[in-house]
């Protein structure tokens, strides 16, 4: 009964929070070159947006009364870019206290004031998959957010209806944090497998206990329920297929390992994040139906990425694996269009294939492809307008639109776009980034790492 009550509460809360995010706009984008991603390139084409959705696409459309017009003559309109791996707009990244922390969620620590949301918009990015860090084998739950910068309610960032996802992590990070850092398993890739299997076995027993209880309750109203356990609840939801796994991974062996484990537990959907060696097992990934979200060219920053190649995304794509290019960095995040463009060099992907890597493919990986990721009638009006083809180095993002609302406009962009300025704070000090700014943030919040970063200013990924 308690669970039902809890569920009802959650649903009610959900309704309230989605109500916050309902602000949607009307717009008319005139005469742009429209890169639909799923339906080719349309020249001299208009897009009509009503109530945050794409209402019409075509030539010489009629502008309804009172709808603001954006003249996109000579410019390129593409779907809003989706970053499948990010840590922006949250105030904590890791709950690094246990190899399994499925019960926590970064959705609880959303920060709508984060300037990085705005900077992402300025790079045409409209959606981020905000992830827990990679300190734990089974980390926390992630949140898919829309970059509704300007809203001050954390809940307004949530992409209502996006499927639940959770972060797993294999290899050097969890073994370093737990095995080497705290002397608890896992210390090796063998231990990582054992931690996951152990967690799933416990979750399965937990599910069975609750199933038995539900059966017994039909006969015996005084039946005693098993103890409620939030961690096992979440793990059970993974087994039920209600939560998608996004797994930090680098090496081919650990990628194969997780697929074997998931097969044993009947879990079908998984996205391998980073996956620098996914190219080595591309046929296995394709056969499993697993997806991969990778860097365009990052490598050599740690040993498990020494045998990487910038041709990863192209090899995966040619082998039929749904692939995306992500950032895991507030710096790369600002030019994902450029990161995707590199796949034309490294492996000769076509323009449409390169664009898919940062639009419809990440949408598929997050389970939101019916809503976003391409320019189609009925989809959310999340769009980016560029001065030149976005895969050209000379392209500058001019406007970024979320739900039909212009959230970034290069021509009306004052110097300071902070939402909250603290009058108590002393004069703003600059950050001297040096050369080590774009270490990705998967391990942010780990004391060991911050200590090392401070003393060595080393690149820790």
């Amino acid at each position, binding site marked *: 009964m308690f669970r039902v009550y809890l569920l009802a509460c959650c649903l009610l809360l959900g309704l309230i929070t989605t109500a916050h995010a309902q602000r949607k706009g009307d717009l008319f984008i005139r005469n742009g070159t429209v890169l639909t991603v799923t339906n080719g390139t349309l020249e001299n084409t208009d897009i009509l947006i009503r109530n945050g959705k794409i209402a019409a696409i075509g030539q010489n459309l009629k502008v309804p009364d009172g709808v603001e017009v954006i003249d996109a003559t000579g410019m390129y309109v593409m779907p809003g870019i989706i970053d499948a791996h990010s840590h922006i707009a949250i105030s904590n990244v890791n709950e690094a206290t246990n190899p399994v922390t499925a019960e926590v969620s970064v959705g609880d620590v959303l920060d709508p004031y984060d*300037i990085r949301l705005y*900077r992402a918009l*300025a790079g045409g990015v409209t959606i981020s998959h905000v992830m827990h860090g990679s300190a734990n084998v089974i980390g926390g739950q992630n949140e898919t957010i829309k970059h509704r910068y300007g809203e001050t309610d954390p809940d307004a960032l949530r992409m209502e209806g996006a499927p639940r996802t959770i972060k797993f992590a294999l290899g050097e990070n969890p073994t370093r944090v737990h095995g080497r850092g705290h002397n608890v398993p896992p210390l090796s890739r063998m231990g990582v497998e054992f931690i996951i299997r152990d967690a799933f076995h416990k979750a399965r027993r937990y599910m069975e206990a609750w199933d038995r209880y539900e059966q017994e309750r039909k006969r015996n109203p005084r039946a005693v329920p098993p103890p409620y356990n939030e961690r096992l609840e979440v793990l059970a939801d993974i087994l039920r297929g209600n939560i998608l796994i996004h797994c930090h991974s680098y090496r081919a062996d650990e990628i194969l390992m997780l697929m074997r484990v998931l097969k044993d537990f009947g879990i079908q959907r998984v996205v391998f994040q980073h996956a620098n060696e996914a*190219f*080595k097992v*591309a*046929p*296995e990934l394709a*056969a499993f139906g697993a997806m991969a979200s990778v860097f365009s*060219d*990052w490598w*050599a*920053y*740690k*040993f498990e990425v*020494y*045998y*990487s*190649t*910038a*041709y990863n995304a*192209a*090899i995966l794509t*040619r082998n039929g694996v749904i692939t995306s290019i992500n950032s895991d960095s507030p*710096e790369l995040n*600002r030019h994902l269009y450029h990161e995707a*463009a*590199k796949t*034309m*060099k*490294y*492996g000769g992907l076509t323009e449409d294939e390169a664009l898919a890597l940062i639009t419809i493919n990440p949408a598929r990986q997050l389970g939101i492809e019916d809503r976003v990721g391409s320019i189609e009638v009925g989809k959310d009006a999340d769009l980016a307008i560029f001065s030149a083809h976005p*895969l050209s*180095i*000379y392209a*500058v993002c001019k406007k970024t639109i979320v739900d039909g609302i212009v959230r970034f406009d290069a021509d009306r*962009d004052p*110097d*300071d*776009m*902070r939402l909250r*300025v603290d009058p108590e704070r*002393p004069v*703003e*000090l*600059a*950050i*001297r*980034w*040096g*050369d080590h*700014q*774009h270490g990705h943030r998967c391990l942010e919040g780990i004391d060991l790492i*911050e200590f090392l*970063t*401070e003393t060595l*200013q*080393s690149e*820790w*990924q």
Partner: protein
Amino acid sequence: MKRLLLLWIIGWLLSLPAAQATDVPKARRGVFALTNARIVTVTQGVIERGTLIIREDRIVAIGTDVEIPPEAEVIDCTGLEIYPGFIDSGTHLGLIEIGSLPETRDYRELGDLTPQVDALTAVNPNSVLIPVNRVNGVTTVITEPEGGLLPGKAALINLFGYTPEQMHVGGVRLMVLDFPSKGRRGPWDRRKPEDIEKAFREAMDKLNEVWDRAERYARIDSAYRANPEKNPKPLYVPEMQPLLPVIRGEMPLMIKVDLAPDILEAIQWVKKRGLKRVVFSGVAEGWRVADKIAEAGIPCLVGPVLSLPTRESDRYDKAYANAGLLHAAGVKIAIRTGEAENVRNLPYHAGFAAAYGLGREAALRAVTINPAEIFGVDDLIGSLEVGKKANLFVSDGDPFEPKTQVRYVFIDGYLIPMDNRQLRLYQEFLHRQPGLELHPATH
């Protein structure tokens, strides 16, 4: 018959190493004629459908009316473009192999004062990172130590050679000074502003104390050299000796400095110390004080361009626009990536600077002739001119565009194999054999 078999076996064994040797692609020199190319000389305009002749290490002819030597190997460059090899003005290339493994990191020595250490000493000519980077057209880099106040000497190296000395270009070394900073070291740096200010003052005091000593050391050394009979020979002091050429203006001082207040302090400090050969490196907030830098006449190695603004309140594109704003103010700029494994992205750092205000021509100069001039090797590299070293590449389009492919790279006259581990992994794994089927041996 037996003897015949034996001979055959011996012959087969002897032929083995030779056969294997031919499988390894090697760089080679000779006489090359690159014909029908669009030649972007940088200093002498663009030549359409021109020919460029390379003999040994030099460019010996460029033009539309060039006679092709009979012994030349002709490379038809119809539809292709030739550019001078790009120069990255600040990297760790060769000094590091794997970022997180201290055993493979050689760009930092213990202690605040280690000007005696020399980056060239630790350059690994066979680093896997080097071939991955040079096939994008970056032929030459500054590789630099970091950490502490005076971390050591940076060196200008070509990305080809079997010893550091073979890679060293024009004998160029720069003394690195990591200038004290009034900024935060990163978002994790939660020090109070007073503490930051105090740390800055202490670091400045230390710098001044070191420099006073160095100047004194130089006076003693000069006096001794002028009259070795009368004056005492200065004691060898490991952290003073290497500063002599800097004090005397024989070796440039590369000042790593990023933030506006630090840049202003550095300009004052350079003036006070009477230093003539100074370059700034990093210069993230150069745009805030561009006119002051221009006035001081100090060239800047700007970058990384692909980076975040230094302050939350700054416009999102300031890091991209910085190089253009400095150039517009009259500062001589070169571009640096600050990278090791991804020096190959130098053309994109330049391209972003170009798109955000620098313009394509100035961006091209910032990765070719400008750094050559700043490092005093413009008689050797940085443009396509007769008599210069054959450091160049051939591409199928604008090298700043991501989709452009680089076809040929020449470094010091060597035609470089366009091979590297990343490409080999691609070739092996694009269509894996076996694919999903199990190998028969496992049954």
